[in-house]
């Protein structure tokens, strides 16, 4: 494992780095008076005001055709619960597709940094990448069956993408090593597991039993991904901690 995550070095961000300057800065701050009274709750007032006045992220697109999907399409046109289903399916489609790109990014890190005992192998990462792609195909097909447009960006997809935006951004950063990337994968896989669970429940609730069964199989695969990521992260972190102790001459 090259380039450790937790090297000791000259970190300048703490207040104790500059005892003389920090003393002056603290004194000046203590003497000054805030420019206006109140506290951080003033910010909340603005948030409340804006949230009550502006529109939402956007809408779920209407079904693209009626042929062969009459029941769903009619439900959707009536604004029934299927709209929620299409929204959440759109979310999974986007998430799984981004997941493929995330594992591609992590594979590059494996090339640079190598792995460790109990860490991910190329074969494992490539297999998960393909499974994410397969889940994307599964969801795309489900949306098409329901008369939805799988290329549409639904509000749930937009929301999920924005919530997790830091993960792709971090995984492609050359400064981030393979072990650090796994922290990102953990966030993604935890969310993915919970989201597939919800999707299975929703499919059953809406009477799409066949889809629910297929989604359950995807969930099984995602559970394995999560277990693997946890194990890799665990092994890597413990290894770093042990290597650190040895370097410091600490007793084993």
């Amino acid at each position, binding site marked *: 494992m090259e380039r450790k995550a937790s090297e000791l070095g000259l970190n300048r961000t703490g207040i104790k780095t500059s005892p003389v300057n920090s003393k002056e800065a603290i004194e000046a701050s203590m003497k000054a008076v805030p420019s206006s009274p109140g506290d951080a709750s003033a910010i909340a007032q603005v948030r409340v005001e804006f949230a009550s006045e502006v529109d939402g*992220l956007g809408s779920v697109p209407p079904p693209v055709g009626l042929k062969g999907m009459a029941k769903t399409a009619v439900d959707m046109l009536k604004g029934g619960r299927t709209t929620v289903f299409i929204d959440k399916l759109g979310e999974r489609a986007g998430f799984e597709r981004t997941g493929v*790109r995330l594992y591609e990014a992590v594979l590059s890190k494996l090339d640079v940094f190598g792995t460790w005992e109990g860490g991910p192998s190329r074969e494992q990462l490539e297999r998960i990448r393909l499974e994410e*792609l397969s889940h994307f195909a599964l969801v795309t097909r489900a949306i098409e069956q329901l008369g939805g447009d799988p290329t549409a*960006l639904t509000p749930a997809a937009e929301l999920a*993408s924005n919530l997790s935006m830091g993960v792709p951004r971090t995984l492609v950063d050359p400064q981030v090593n393979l072990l650090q990337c796994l922290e990102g994968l953990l966030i993604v896989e935890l969310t993915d597991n919970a989201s597939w669970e919800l999707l299975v429940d929703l499919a059953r609730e809406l009477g799409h039993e066949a889809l629910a069964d297929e989604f359950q199989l995807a969930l099984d695969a995602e559970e394995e991904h999560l277990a693997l990521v946890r194990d890799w992260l665990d092994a890597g972190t413990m290894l770093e901690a042990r290597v650190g102790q040895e370097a410091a001459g600490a007793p084993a």
Partner: protein
Amino acid sequence: MGLDLLKEKGVPLDRQKFTWKDLTRRTYSKLDDDAFTRVRVILMNGIESESLRFSHACARMNRDLREPLALIRRVEQHQQTLVNWMNPGNQSPLETTVGFEQVAIEVTASVAIHEPDPYLAQAYRFGMLEDFDHLYRYAALYDRVEGKDPNYLIQSYSDIIPGRPTSIEHRHPLDDVRQPYDRRTADPLSKIHALLITAAEHQTHDYYMNIGPTFTDPVARMLYAEIASIEEQHVTQYESLSDPDESWLEKWLLHEAVEVYCYYSCLHYESNPRIKEVWQRFVDYELGHLHYVRGLFEQVEKRDASEILPAELPEPIRFDSHREFVRRTLSAEVDMSANGTRFVPRAEESDRTRRYREEINSEGSPSEIVAAGYQWKPGTELVEKAARLGVQTEGRIQ
């Protein structure tokens, strides 16, 4: 049609007011609004950005104009804020970038079609094909790094295919300076076009220079560095189309006319009622500015503004797909380059340009790397790969 620039007075300067909330409360929907609403917002930010850029330069070189410039500039500052803050916060910088290139393609195409001067029209077609290629490169980046579909933003109005390859757009600076129009004989529309496309490209350059380094992906950083360099070339090209012998006040008057024209064009096409209201308000504000500057121009230069301004506004910028025009231009002119002020076949490029390009591309080409083998498909290039893979009924790959 029918807006008489010399008669309409608009809203007087002292009645042009803003509050912080007013400046920041409106956004369009990335999901639900038409792509051309984003195009208009981005264009108008560029127009306002140029008005500030010009105003500051002018103030540094004209003692007597400093105060009038400061008065109008403050309003323009707030107009720019209101316009640019209509971009929603859930639109990522890369998504806004895709919007920038759509502006460059569709607005430049509209200008190229309506431009009365053949040389200037050629300059617009030339630049348009280069920006067209940038859209394709950024689309590949969006698809391949984030796993998302660029057509979320483009909405099928523009093709996502290669244009003149970015890697061969790099030219020696002296091959980007063009022949200007003659201020005494040029059609007012030519003057308006040159200024408005310069404004759009200048903001694109500045935007890429600001957001490029915020990316973590090394290919993204290199791609922004590469395309920002072309945008600088484009600013050099487009600004050189304006007659440098126009007086400062003459240029100021033209700036105000461009602003009225652009907001008027936005108003003509806008489908979002809350945003349409902004375009109407700013048509009226800009008429106020134009009227004010016209007074200064006539008082200081003792010339009639009708020498400079068209009596009636020209046909609005066409905010719509120019697919057929772009395809025709692509097929006829993709192999063009420039040598000095002339547009020439690639074989007639200057040695200085060849040497320059060879050197800057000598460690590889980001735009080639990012789009290697890239073919956009609805739902991203992964759709086809997923279809080939097939859906495993077990939910996992065997």
